[in-house]
């Protein structure tokens, strides 16, 4: 609009340069960028230390490995942005995974019924916790800590602490199959096509509103860069067995929740609630209902992760998903989510999950003992937040 033009004309040269930078890279926050850098560093380091790390076989494994943490982290971002925490997702993964195995193995129900039943169970567990947090005002930390113990206990009870195998071929596919190479290429082309379409759609819409539009060259550069990333990803995956099924779940869920968090009123309200609950309340936002819905989504994502995990392991065990909530929280925090609420992105959380999984995978490849993995992952988490806080306090001055 006129005002924006005016503002741009008045902007001094350095401001303009800065805005070009932000036009190019979007508005992801600093910590997420730092972590992209850290991720590349970690990959290069492991690649030098152990050449098998960067083979397409290992990368394919890595993406499969990260799927559970990523799916949980996607839900966790919303919970944390709203100013809460969900400690129960690991146990929800265990319990709903156990349920899936029972439905499939003991009751011999068809795969579609098993899947829908599991999803419903996850949503209901989330609903119950969300209701306690939102309407009964019990702190989320307590509710979900209780849920973490109760759900794990119920799992042990109903499975009688047995490992239940899952032999349904359809369920087995979900966690273990690969897309045919040709189909992978088609998916890649569709993704690139969508990138182009959405970018130009946005330009057209801004033109309609008479807003300033970023130079065409920059948009093309951006889309080309992202397309290249898609192409490399498809090529690397196809070089092994094709795109693994679980990572498609992650990508689709990430896309859906990216959309929810950035483009919908629901997403906006979550950020407002986490940013200043009093201002959100006085703006007429129904805080209770939204808070409950967030926990429903978190539970639902927990059950999706459960299906993937159960399928990959071809069985449900009583330790399935143990400590998964901690990985998910760590992934969110590394990816720039503030535990104070109000800030955080889905993309950041995915990057955080990738960092965590890369560390796991790389250190296992090098044959480091597992205690090192705990020490390194824990340290990375604290250092990431430390960097962020010191950056932020510099910004304040």
């Amino acid at each position: 609009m006129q005002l924006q033009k005016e503002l741009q004309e008045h902007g001094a040269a350095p401001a303009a340069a800065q805005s070009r930078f932000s036009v190019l890279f979007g508005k992801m926050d600093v910590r997420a960028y730092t972590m992209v850098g850290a991720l590349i560093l970690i990959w290069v380091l492991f690649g030098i230390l152990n050449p098998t790390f960067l083979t397409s076989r290992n990368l394919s494994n890595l993406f499969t490995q990260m799927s559970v943490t990523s799916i949980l982290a996607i839900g966790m971002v919303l919970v944390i942005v709203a100013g809460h925490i969900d400690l129960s997702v690991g146990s929800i993964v265990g319990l709903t995974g156990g349920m899936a195995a029972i439905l499939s193995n003991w009751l011999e129900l068809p795969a579609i019924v098993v899947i829908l039943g599991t999803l419903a169970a996850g949503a209901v567990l989330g609903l119950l916790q969300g209701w306690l947090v939102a309407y009964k005002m019990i702190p989320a930390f307590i509710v979900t800590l209780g849920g973490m113990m109760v759900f794990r206990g119920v799992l042990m009870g109903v499975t009688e602490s047995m490992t239940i195998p899952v032999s349904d071929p359809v369920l087995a596919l979900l966690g273990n199959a690969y897309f045919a190479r040709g189909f992978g290429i088609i998916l890649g082309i569709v993704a690139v096509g969508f990138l182009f379409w959405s970018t130009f759609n946005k330009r057209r819409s801004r033109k309609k509103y008479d807003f300033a539009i970023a130079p065409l060259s920059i948009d093309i550069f951006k889309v080309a860069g992202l397309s290249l990333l898609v192409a490399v990803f498809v090529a690397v995956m196809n070089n092994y067995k094709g795109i693994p099924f679980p990572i498609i779940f992650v990508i689709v869920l990430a896309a859906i929740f990216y959309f929810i968090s950035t483009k919908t009123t629901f997403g906006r309200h979550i950020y407002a609630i986490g940013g200043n609950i009093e201002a959100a309340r006085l703006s007429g936002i129904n805080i209770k209902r939204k808070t409950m819905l967030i926990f429903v989504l978190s539970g639902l994502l927990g059950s999706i992760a459960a299906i993937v995990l159960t399928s990959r392991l071809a069985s449900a065990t009583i330790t399935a998903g143990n400590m998964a909530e901690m990985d998910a929280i760590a992934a969110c925090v590394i990816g720039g989510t503030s535990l104070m609420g109000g800030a955080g992105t889905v993309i950041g959380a995915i990057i955080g999950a990738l960092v965590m999984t890369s560390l796991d995978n790389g250190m296992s490849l090098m044959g480091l003992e597992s205690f090192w993995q705990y020490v390194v992952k824990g340290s990375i988490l604290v250092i990431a937040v430390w960097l962020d806080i010191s950056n932020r306090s510099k910004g304040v001055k």
Partner: protein
Amino acid sequence: MYVLEMAEISKEFPGVKALDHVNFKVKQGEIHALCGENGAGKSTLMKVLSGLYPAGSYGGEIIISGEKKEFHKITDAEKAGIAIIHQELALVKEMTIGENIFLGAEPTRRGAIQWDELYHQASLWLKRVGLHHSPDTKIGNLGIGQQQLVEIAKALSKHTKILILDEPTAALTESEVSILMGILNQLRSEGVTCVYISHKMPEVFALADSITVLRDGRTVATLDRNETDDDKVVSLMVGRELTERYPRVEHTPGDVVLEVRNYNVWHPEKKHHRVLRDIEFTLRKGEILGIAGLMGAGRTELVSSLFGAYGGRAEGTVHIEGKTVRIRAIAEAIKAGIALVSEDRKRQGLVMGMDVKRNTTLATLHKVSRLGVVNENEEIRWASRYVQELKTKTASLETPVGTLSGGNQQKVVIGKWLMSSPKILIMDEPTRGIDVGAKYEIYNLMNQLVEQGVAIIMISSELPEVLGMSDRILVMSEGQFVREYDWREATQEKIMLAATGGK
């Protein structure tokens, strides 16, 4: 002989001169009332005295019993025998009376707290302030008035020579007030000097020996109680001339938009405490209704209750444009055409980490979205419309509101509520903490809105603002409307007298 002399005290905050060469002298063993409007500098002066603002951060001298003192921290002032009891009591609710009295000064032997000694001494102090409770009662089980007595006991246990009470009766019931006054009279007879901050005239004249009046950060006068009366003190408190700081425009009020009848509101936690009593008023299209009153008179409670944001039980009838409405939630109030620019924009108005455009659309996101999906371009269009109309100075629509100045932040809040196209715009302290230029712009804006047929309710603690902007003025005191004035007949003195419970 003065026990306390504060000489030529000056204190500046960025952009504001809070205290300007204030002189304040208190005689040994008297109760000295410190009076002034909200924001006159009373609390700042007492913060200087109690060491909350360390020596060096202000100009001037503090002399205690003839000796020059420099307080670098609160404990320095405590050592010199000064104790302050703040409006918000600073007691730990989960601890007992005894633990609270000796918090940080527990009698110990080899590191172990001597509990018997502590409770024995605590019971002696309690006797002295006339509180007949066992010292192992939890603070949370006491009423506000009793808690205040515990605070006084705590202060006395530190061998206090000068006791400062900052608006001690703001939260007290009438019987609690008379108990407190009895205790203060008794302490005076025992030789304790007391500084009593208040703007309630009946209390001041019942208690004080001398009265010092502050205005705009300056000492206006120190008077002997016997030589003055409440009219005189009130006129000294407000005594400034109305200048051309307010763009007065003749409004022609139209139909009644809001009619409130027999409206009573109870406290959300203390269920039997009625905060608002038999409120009745009407609001017409195209007028500014000013609500004046002291802090704690119930003004904010009234407007937040009308807006569905208070939480306490409300009874009575509310009509908007002739139709009876029952507002149970804020979303319903917004739908009914009410908007509330709340008094604390940082805490209640804005999400500081969010940008200008997102804050603008926060209350009316449905206007720029379809099927729950936000149309960002539509959002930019609305936000930039209000940035232009209100002349908000911001680098861009994507600038976080936390980085804007107070005046521009307030404009973002106002823009947010204008976007809901309200019939009734309630503004609680609309110009608090913003500079003169931005104030003037907001006043002009208010006139424009009234011109367009919006009805405005303005709450303000600044009397000149109430007088300068309102068409009608309602004065509130202790949860009731006590007076109504047309702006032409209202004066600061009349309003102050009504608000302070004078005749």
